[in-house]
C-alpha cells in the first residue's frame, strides 16, 4: 500500500507468500532486519503499533495517573466536561476520564486473551479436521459448523447467562464464538499442505500421524492464520463491549467501555453527549490500531500489494 521501495528487496529474498509470512513470524537471523525495514516503510502499521502499545501502557499505569478512582463515585453527578472533570461525570458521579483510561485493562485483556484462547482451541482442531480423513475430522468440522450456524450474539449472551457474568467467563465465551474462524482457516491450509511432498517425505521416513500433523504440517499452516489474529482482537473488543452494553458482560462499576456507553445511552437522547462519547472514541481508536496492524500484516503476506 504505502511501501513501494521494499517490494523488490523482500521479493528478492523471499519467493513465496508462505515464506514471507514464515519469515515475518519466525524470522531467522538477518531476516529480522527485513521485517523492521518493512515496518519502517509501512506508515499505517507504525500508527497501529503506536496505538496498540499506547493502550497496553495505559492498561498497566492507568490507575496511577487517573485523576479519580475509576470505581468510586464522586458527588458531582452528570457534570459536563470541565477542568475538574476533563471528560465530565456520569449519572452516578463517576469521573469519565478516569474510567476511560482504566478500561483497557479490562477490555484489551479480555479481547487479547480470548483471541489467543480461540487460536489455541481452533488451530489444533483445524489441523485434525483437515488432516484426518476418517470420522474424527468430519465430526470436528460438523460441530464447528453448528457453532457457526448459531446467531453469534445470542449465543454469547446465552452462554454468559449460563456461566454467569465475570471477566473469566467473558473470555471463555468470546473465545468459543471465535474459535471456528481459526478452525476453518487452518483446515483449508491443511487440506492444501497435506498433499505436498515434504509431508509425504516425512511420512515415508516413519513419522507417526501425530508427529506429521503437529511437528511437520502445523508450523507451515500457522503463519497465514496468525495474520488474522490482529483483526480478530479488534472484533473481540467490539463483541466484549457489545455484550456488556446489553448487560450480559462485566458488572458495574467495573470500568469497561461497553458498559460506560450503555450508561450514557439514555443521556444521548436528552443531550448529555459526554457520557457515551468518550468511551466510544477510546474504543474505536484501539480497534483501529489493531485493524491498521492487520492491514500491514495482510500487505506483508500478499506480495502483489507490497
Amino acid at each position, binding site marked *: 500500500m504505502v511501501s513501494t521501495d521494499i517490494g523488490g528487496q523482500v521479493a528478492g529474498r523471499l519467493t513465496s507468500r508462505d515464506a514471507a509470512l514464515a519469515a515475518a513470524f519466525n524470522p531467522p537471523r538477518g531476516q529480522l532486519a527485513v521485517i523492521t525495514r518493512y515496518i519502517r516503510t509501512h506508515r499505517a502499521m507504525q500508527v497501529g503499533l503506536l496505538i496498540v502499545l499506547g493502550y497496553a501502557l495505559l492498561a498497566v499505569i492507568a490507575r496511577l495517573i487517573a485523576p479519580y478512582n475509576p470505581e468510586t463515585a464522586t458527588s458531582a453527578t452528570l457534570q459536563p466536561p470541565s477542568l475538574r472533570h476533563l471528560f465530565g461525570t456520569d449519572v452516578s458521579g463517576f469521573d469519565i476520564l478516569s474510567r476511560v483510561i482504566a478500561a483497557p485493562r479490562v477490555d484489551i485483556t479480555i479481547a487479547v486473551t480470548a483471541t489467543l484462547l480461540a487460536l489455541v482451541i481452533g488451530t489444533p482442531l483445524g489441523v485434525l479436521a483437515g488432516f484426518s480423513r476418517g470420522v474424527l475430522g468430519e465430526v470436528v468440522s460438523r460441530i464447528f459448523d453448528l457453532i457457526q*450456524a448459531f*446467531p*453469534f450474539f445470542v449465543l454469547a449472551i446465552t*452462554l454468559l447467562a*449460563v456461566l454467569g457474568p465475570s471477566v473469566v467467563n467473558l473470555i471463555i465465551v468470546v473465545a468459543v464464538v471465535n474459535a471456528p474462524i481459526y478452525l476453518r482457516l487452518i483446515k483449508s491450509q491443511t487440506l492444501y499442505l497435506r498433499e505436498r511432498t515434504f509431508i509425504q517425505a516425512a511420512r515415508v521416513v516413519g513419522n507417526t500421524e501425530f508427529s506429521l500433523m503437529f511437528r511437520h504440517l502445523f508450523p507451515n499452516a500457522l503463519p497465514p492464520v496468525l495474520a488474522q489474529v490482529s483483526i480478530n482482537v*479488534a472484533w473481540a473488543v*467490539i463483541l466484549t463491549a457489545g455484550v456488556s*452494553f*446489553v448487560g450480559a458482560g462485566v458488572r458495574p462499576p467495573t470500568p469497561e467501555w461497553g458498559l460506560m456507553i450503555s450508561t450514557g445511552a439514555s443521556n444521548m437522547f436528552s443531550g448529555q453527549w459526554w457520557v457515551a462519547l468518550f468511551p466510544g472514541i477510546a474504543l474505536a481508536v484501539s480497534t483501529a490500531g489493531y485493524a491498521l496492524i492487520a492491514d500491514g500484516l495482510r500487505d506483508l503476506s500478499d506480495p502483489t500489494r507490497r
Partner: protein
Amino acid sequence: MLRYAVRRLLIIPPQLLGISLVTFVIIRQVPGNPARAQLGQFASQDAVQRLATYLGLNRPLPEQFLIYLKNLLRGDLGQSWFTGHSVSSDLLVRFPSTLELITLGFLGSLIVAIPLGVLISLRGAGFFGRIAERFSFVYGLMAGAIPDFWFALILVFVFFHLLGVVAAPVGQLDLAVNPPPRITGMLVLDSLLTFNWVALLSAIGHLILPVATLVFVNAAPVLRMTRSSIANVMDSDFIRFSRANGLPDKLIIRYALKNALLPIITLSGVLYTILLSGAVLTETIFSWGGVGQYAVQSVVNADWFALQAVVLLTASFSLFVFLVLDLLYAVVDPRIKY
C-alpha cells in the same frame, strides 16, 4: 441443479435438529426456575411444584426434548412465560419488523458500496483517484473500528437532539399515528399497500437512523470486497487477452464486472445472516421491538421456549440464505454446475 437443491434442502432438517438439541441443552443450564418465574416470587412452593410437573420440567431431559420435538413438528413452539403468548404468535409479530430493518440495511449497504467500489476500482490514477482511494481507506478503517451501537447513539444525538430532524428514535411509528392494517407485518410495505401516506412517512422517519447505522457499518466490507474482487479480475489473463485484442474499454469492464460478482455475492449473503444476529444491539437502542430484543429479553428472563425458537428461526434463516447463495452461483456463473 434441481437435484442439488433438493439434496441441500434435505440436509437442512438434520442440521436444525442438531441446533435444536444443542440449544435445548445449553438453555436448560440457564439459572432460574421457569415455573417460579412464571408464578412470581410470592407463589407458594407447592404451586411452583405443581406447575413444574404440569410443564413437564421434572421429567428426564431426553424425554423433555422428545416432547419438545413432537410439539415442534405440530408447529407448536411452546408458550412464552414472559409475554404470556404462544411463542409463534410472538415471533409472527416481531420477525417482520426485524426482517424489514435488516433487509433495508442490507440493500442500502449494497447500493452504497458496490457502485462506489466499481467507481474507485475503475478510476484513473489522477487526483480524483487518489482522493477516492484515501476516502475508502479512512472509511473502511472507521467502519471496522466503530461499534454499531455507539454510532447509533451518535446519530441519535446529532439528528434527534441537536438538529431535531428525525422523529423520537423509539419504536417503529409515532404514537399518534394509526398503524396500517396488518398484511405482511412490515410497516413500510403495509402502508404502501393500503395507500396510508401518513403511516408511511412516520415509518420511514423511524427507519432512517437504524438503517443508516447498519449501512455505515456493513457497507465497508462490501466495498472492500468489490474493490479486491475487481482488482483480481482485471489482473487475470482473459482481460489481458481482451485488451490485446483491442476490445473497447466499456466491453472489458462489463466482462470484468460479471466475473467479479461471485465473491461479492458470497460476502453479501454472509452479511445478511450476520445482520440478523447482529441486529440485537441496533434494536435495543431504537426500542425496535423485533426478534433481537425478544432474544435478549428471553435470555434475561430464562424464557426457555422463546429463546429456543429465536435460535431456531435465526439458524434456519441463515441456512436458507446459504442455500439460495449456492443456487445463485450457478445462475450467475454458467461454469458452475451442480
